[in-house]
């Protein structure tokens, strides 16, 4: 991008009197907006830019050139499952027969949309080994919250109000405890063992009749399968709690393992991870929630149900439901893409997703463990964690390695998470990456390790080839400037 000509904000391209839209002529101009009571109208127009169409197109096209997506290059961001987002899914989600549907229009006129929703519910139930799904939650975190609401509703329906605590492993993603808190639970932390898995001996004394349930990610955030899962589930169930599966790491399980078979009662799935819908720079995602038989009545309103005899789908609301977590039926555009993905792969390819993603992760790990510190040996699942460079004498940090990777045209792995290791570098390649891509990444990682020993300054001052250089995070947080108005007023 030419930042001299195109590095401005849209507001800086504005000129009074320009416009970028066309609207029909007003045939009914005798009905005048000006007739509204003036005390209810805004006194000053919003300070929006005034720009012509081509200027808008160039502005955002040039901005996109400053971005990096899965289509640009390898994106091994751990725990985010940055898999390929197939183009056919985009085409289907923009299908004209679906995009113009109003969510409250007559049910008889949206039967096709409801069938997509219903079929995806059922496909996810089969893939996860659970009974029923809602597709209403908008994201993974939203799914967690919804799932925990199911958990609480279950206990309250049994008049068991003393179950106020949720157990969460210390390796868990921060969203787990945050979701538990939003749902009104207290969080109890269970420790990990040196191999990264939940310490069953630490868990036992935590279990009593105040425990509502336990949240787990499996494989966990270190990419390790919790091999004691059957015992953990048994213990939690014996204590009267429910098991919650955080579907963040579901990808390696595809074709090999189903959360329902592992003893989980409630789970969410991130359609934007496992089912290939694009991350869109942070959203929209979708976080469907599934439950074991016996918990269906708590799923949020509205629900899509089928009268299979008459081949008719209806939207219903139940009194037993936990309430509603969304206005309508979730991010329908995302649901369309995920359904297209499942149809495209079919059962024979869906079952290969887990093994191929897992193979790629293990291959990278084995090829790099002589230059990067591998804290946990053995077979990993779809991702693994290095604890920084093996050579600790260089003062080159994980942040430096991440920034240097950008120079070589790769996105960085997830860094400084999980918190169990100080220099965590969490790598997740997906099933879509070729051996050549992985070999290219491995070679660059080895080069960076070498640079760290021989020319550490080069790494510590990276990136050098990106549109901008390292940013001053502290300045941004110390004196937050978050709008153009503040920027223009020269607050910074």
């Amino acid at each position, binding site marked *: 991008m030419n930042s001299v000509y195109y590095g401005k904000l849209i507001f800086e391209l504005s000129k009074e009197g320009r416009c970028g839209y066309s609207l029909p002529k007003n045939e009914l101009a005798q009905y005048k907006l000006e007739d509204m009571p003036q005390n209810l109208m805004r006194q000053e127009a919003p300070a929006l830019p005034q720009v012509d169409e081509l200027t808008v197109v160039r502005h955002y096209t040039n901005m996109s050139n400053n971005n990096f997506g899965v289509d640009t290059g390898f994106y091994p961001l751990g725990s985010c499952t940055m898999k390929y987002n197939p183009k056919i899914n985009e085409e289907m989600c923009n299908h004209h027969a679906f995009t113009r549907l109003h969510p409250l229009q007559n049910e008889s006129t*949206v039967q096709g949309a409801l069938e997509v929703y219903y079929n995806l519910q059922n496909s996810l139930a089969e893939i996860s080994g659970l009974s029923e799904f809602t597709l209403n939650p908008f*994201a993974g975190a939203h799914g967690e919250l919804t799932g925990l609401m199911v958990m609480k509703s279950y206990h309250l329906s049994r008049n068991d109000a003393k179950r106020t605590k949720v157990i969460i492993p210390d390796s868990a993603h921060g969203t787990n405890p945050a979701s538990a808190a939003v749902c009104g639970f207290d969080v109890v932390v269970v420790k990990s063992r040196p191999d990264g898995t939940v310490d069953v001996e630490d868990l036992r004394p935590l279990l009593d009749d105040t425990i509502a349930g336990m949240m787990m990610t499996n494989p966990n955030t270190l990419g390790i399968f919790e091999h004691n899962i059957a015992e953990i589930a048994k213990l939690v169930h014996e204590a009267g709690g429910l098991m919650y599966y955080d579907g963040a790491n579901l990808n390696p399980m595809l074709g090999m393992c189903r959360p329902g078979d592992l003893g989980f009662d409630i789970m969410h799935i991130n359609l934007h991870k496992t089912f290939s819908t694009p991350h869109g720079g*942070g959203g929209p995602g979708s976080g469907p929630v599934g439950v074991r038989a016996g918990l269906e009545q708590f799923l949020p309103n509205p629900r899509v149900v089928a009268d299979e005899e008459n081949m008719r789908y209806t939207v219903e609301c139940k009194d037993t439901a936990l309430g509603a977590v969304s206005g309508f039926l979730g991010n329908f555009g995302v649901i369309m893409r995920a359904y297209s993905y499942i149809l495209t792969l079919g059962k024979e390819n869906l079952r290969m997703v887990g093994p191929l993603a897992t193979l790629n992760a293990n291959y990278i790990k084995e090829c790099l463990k002589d230059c990067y510190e591998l804290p946990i040996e053995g077979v990993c699942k779809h991702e693994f964690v290095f604890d920084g460079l093996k050579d600790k004498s260089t003062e080159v940090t994980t942040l430096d390695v991440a920034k240097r990777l950008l120079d070589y045209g790769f996105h960085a792995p997830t860094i400084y998470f999980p918190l169990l290791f100080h220099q965590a570098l969490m790598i997740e390649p997906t099933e879509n990456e070729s051996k050549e891509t992985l070999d290219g990444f491995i070679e660059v990682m080895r080069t960076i390790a070498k640079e760290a020993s021989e020319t550490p300054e080069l790494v510590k001052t990276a990136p050098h080839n990106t549109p901008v250089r390292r940013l001053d995070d502290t300045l941004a947080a110390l004196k937050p400037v978050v709008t153009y108005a503040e920027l223009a007023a020269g607050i910074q």
Partner: protein
Amino acid sequence: MTYKYFPHTSEDISSMLGKCGLKSLEDLYQDIPQELVLNRDYDLPEAMSEVEVRKMFDELGQYNAQLKCFIGAGVYDHYCPSVINAILSRSEFLTSYTPYQAEISQGTLQYIFEYQSMMATLTGMEVSNASMYDGCTATAEAMMMAVANAKKRNKVLISDTMSPIVTRVVETYAKFHGIVVEHIAAVDGVTSRQDFEQKVSQGDVAGVIVAAPNFYGIVEDYTGWADLCHANKALFIMNCNASALGVIKTPGEWGADVAVGDGQSLGIPMCFGGPYVGYLCTSKKLIRKMPGRIVGATKDLDGKRTFVLTLQAREQHIRREKATSNICSNQSLMALYVTIYMSLMGKQGLKDVNALSYSNAHYLADKLSKLDKFELAYPDKPFLHEFAVKYKGDDIDYLQEAMLEAGIQFGLKLDNETLLLCATETLTKDEIDDAITICEGVQNLKSDDIID
């Protein structure tokens, strides 16, 4: 085994397994107890080619109907400029994730900064977050923000003129978060000032939530509401139709502390309910209490103006259970959608959209109120493009069905004699006239004529 999304050849797989000291793909799962491994195929269809997938969706699409839209209730059929989808389909935006690596994410970070700037000026507030899931959850987040801000209070008031679709989400969050929600009564289509004054003066209210325009399309007068909230140490929260804010008095002008709502009305296709985008704006004073991501301006090593995710100390990955919210993403692509929309439309475009919608809706209301069996539910109340109408005919369902047969979704039925109608700039005068003609025909039918 070859498949278009899986690049490995069998030689690749053997050599990679060899590097890992393994013999088969199954060996990668040797740590999983055998009884937990799925030893069968999924009970799902076999793979479809693109040809078949297209046919499948074409066929499903035939069971949907494209209707002329006289319905709103929170989701509006506005004009979507063609530029937007062209930009949104750029994979540099579409296939990226949250901009953690700012050096290669300035595209996302800059448009979020522009989005925040536009939402702030649109709502008349000082700051905006980077966007949220939708208007309902954004309102629930604002409620939790008010309760966290008040520290020892756990009650919020919500007006009965709020959309019930929003209220039921707010009440769900409240129930689980331990918040008590009390309703402020609606009288003649607007929030009862008396009931509000009485309830907020109890001194135990953390926040008051009202709508603009309200569920019935009415633009209410909130003169003095913010002052009364502040005198009672409660936050004043307004849920507003984003597009309408181009012309109606803003939350900033009313003195609100938090402005929330859905951005769908800023040109986002209705798409059967999502994805949309929630917005949440507030004052600079409350910025550290605000949920969601925020992008701020800073400089890089060369002193160049750049943008970065900031104020992350409020967030779940650092604060865990003490975070301001469990939100750990935003609705970024949809924020880009409304950013481009507002860039194209500018202040004049937003005004024109509102003026056109106003004309269409008021023409429809005027014509209907001249028919024998139709009357406006709240005839003396000001509205923009949505209004409630009473139908005194025999069968309101028959009226809606007759409309459906003509390819018209004629409003949302609120009860057996009330419809909530809406007309935006996408309807033509002819289309409105057609609907009125059907109304004329149906109202003259006697119930004996109506056969189910």
